[in-house]
């Protein structure tokens, strides 16, 4: 067994949380999220600029020499907890985590294999990482949001003339992205969404706070970033799945706190409904699950941050567990709020939709459990 993970929060992480929470309280309350979700620009460019550029959060995972903050997954996880708490419509998970890690995967490959560090691939990767880390360019990985780490993802086809063709559906934050990272049979390519041959068709998502689109490539030009998409994409999706657990934790925490607050105030039968054991046992049980989810999510973030060989298991465990907790928390939130929880006006539905769609994101239910079975040697019957 490897060394013990650090499951606590450091002082710096607490400070980071306070800063993000305060910004989101100002700029991303429930009413604002709802209005935004119904608008034509479902993500909030001004909020993104504050988070990504002013606070420098887009580049947390990117080393300083590549233009980032040189922080770790532990800090990014704290940011995601807060974004989950406010179901903020920002391309953070997709851009600052999945795309950034994919590019870092390319960087690792080109740095290892290229004798000349100034190879065209390495230069393109470094330039993109710098632009992503500075918050100047939103980058998204063009795979379905449901793609799990280590599973086969759809690939674009490379035509004889070198252009890319293909159709990838349910790509998260593609509409906000300026650059898409497109896995193809012969490598990973950067494709600018404004270029000819690239169409981003918005879809109607279950989760109103994370826009989805179909990316259609027909003769699109791309810059090659790596000779094989496999390792970089796997790395991006693994980090994404691991840190999604923190988003789910933040979301579940909000649902529990709101439900407790509401049932303490709401009176029926001449007493607060939160005094009935039938309700408080459900909330206490949920609290226990949230506490456990925190341990699982911290463990995954720490394993990713330290590059632990246990990281794939830590991520699979955290995803299996935290996905369910987030969905349950949101479902309990709706139920224990009674009628008001069923209204469009109350924000509970935003959390329910995010939680349910998060449970499919980066690996549908069962994918991570299968990974656990594989990693710990508990095989299915023949």
């Amino acid at each position, binding site marked *: *067994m490897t060394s013990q993970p650090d499951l606590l929060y450091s002082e710096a992480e607490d400070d980071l949380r306070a800063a993000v929470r305060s910004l989101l309280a100002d700029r991303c309350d429930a009413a604002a999220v709802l209005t935004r979700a119904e608008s034509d620009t479902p993500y909030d460019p001004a909020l993104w600029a504050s988070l990504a550029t002013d606070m420098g959060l887009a580049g947390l995972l990117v080393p300083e020499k590549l233009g980032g903050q040189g922080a770790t997954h532990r800090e990014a996880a704290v940011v995601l907890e807060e974004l989950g708490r406010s179901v903020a419509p920002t391309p953070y998970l997709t851009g600052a985590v999945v795309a950034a890690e994919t590019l870092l995967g390319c960087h690792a490959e080109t740095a290892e294999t290229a004798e000349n560090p100034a190879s065209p691939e390495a230069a393109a990767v470094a330039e993109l990482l710098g632009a992503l880390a500075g918050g100047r360019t939103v980058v998204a990985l063009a795979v379905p949001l449901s793609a799990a780490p280590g599973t086969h993802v759809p690939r674009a086809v490379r035509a004889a003339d070198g252009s890319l063709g293909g159709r990838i559906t349910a790509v998260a934050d593609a509409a906000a992205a300026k650059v898409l990272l497109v896995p193809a049979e012969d490598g990973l390519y950067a494709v600018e969404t404004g270029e000819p041959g690239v169409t981003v068709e918005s879809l109607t998502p279950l989760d109103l706070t994370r826009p989805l689109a179909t990316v259609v490539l027909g003769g699109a030009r791309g810059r090659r970033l790596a000779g094989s998409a496999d390792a970089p994409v796997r790395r991006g999706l693994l980090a994404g799945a691991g840190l999604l657990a923190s988003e789910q934790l933040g979301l579940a925490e909000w649902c529990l706190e709101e439900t407790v607050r509401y049932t303490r105030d709401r009176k029926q039968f001449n007493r607060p409904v939160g005094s009935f054991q039938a309700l408080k046992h459900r909330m206490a049980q949920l609290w226990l699950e949230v506490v456990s989810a925190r341990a699982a999510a911290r463990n995954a973030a720490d394993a990713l941050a330290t590059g632990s060989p246990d990281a794939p298991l830590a991520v699979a465990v955290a995803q299996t567990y935290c996905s369910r907790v987030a969905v349950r928390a949101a479902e309990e939130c709706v139920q224990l709020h009674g009628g008001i929880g069923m209204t469009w006006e109350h924000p509970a539905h935003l959390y329910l939709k995010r939680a349910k769609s998060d449970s499919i994101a980066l690996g549908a239910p069962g994918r991570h459990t299968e990974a*656990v*079975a594989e990693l710990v040697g508990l095989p299915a*019957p023949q």
Partner: protein
Amino acid sequence: MTDATEVRALTQELLAAHPPATTDRTDFLKARFDAGLAWVHYPVGLGGLGAPRSLQAVVDAELAAAGAPDNDPRRIGIGLGMAAPTILRFGTDEQKQSLLRPLWVGEEVWCQLFSEPGAGSDLAALGTRAVRDGDEWVVDGQKVWTSSAHVARWAILIARTDPALPKHRGITYFVCDMTDPGVEVRPLRQITGEAEFNEVFLTGVRIPDSRRLGPVGEGWKVAQTTLMNERVSIGGSRIPREGGMIGPVAATWRERPELRTHDLHQRLLDLWVEAEVARLAGERLRQQLVAGQPGPEGSGMKLAFARLNQEISGLEVELRGAEGLLYDDWTMRRPELVDFTGRDAGYRYLRSKGNSIEGGTSEVLLNIVAERVLGLPSEPRSDKDIAWKDLAR
């Protein structure tokens, strides 16, 4: 004295003066107690150094490395985990001086006389009476679920001293000598076939007033210290991956492919993940304690482990197929130690049913979490301001 280097030096002095290889076990433990290395956070003169609790790990590691004997903490868990902190906080100097050393060394085993047939979850409704008679109290009543009563020298006891007051206010806390006449211990056979626990009948037991812990009528408050320590001690130790009940099931799964079914596989994986997460939550709690930031998470750990133990052992019985139809042995025994993962799957299944009852039922613990951690209002109560003698029973 708060420094790891100094504590290490003291430990080495102890080892030099009393080499474990040539020193009698009890003599070594007594010397360790007198050196203040028994529980370093206890005061000087009572087995400690008044040092931070975290330094105990330094002592324990040094002693373990030197092959020193320990005080077999599992055998004296009630003394260490419940009686000692209560004596330390509420005992007189004389009580602390005379009771703590033999308790820690393990010469005197302790048991707990709290629960009664009519006072389980509602412990404060207890009816064992203690009536003052000069310098003594005369105790009559029946206690139940008392582990170690048949080997114990001492008991911590709560009894009703004023039935005219509301139930929480008329209770007093005592130390009871289990060798006194009038103390009768009978084994209580449980669903596993064995008897870890006892019923204790108290008939005219005379307890000197000098063995009272805390003021008359304050026994409920004193008992809170005991119970708080019980819950902390249940959730507090470090577990390796697959260290709990999931271990034997996972091992059986790996060794016996012929037993595998798809349904069992799904359930096994779900429980494996839950067990791993519960382990991590316990580890996080431990790290919080070490960092001096105890959280309320401890209240939840027992809930989690109770349910997991029950579900995992239930799955294990099913996994074993035809063997799951068998039971190792129904012979009535009185084990001195409880081994939750010992014996076979059927035993584990039956024994773990107690996990959600002993030390606070899961339902009561959920109330505690809801009210004390989440701040939810309590149910309206009709028993708080009524004299104990007028309660429904």
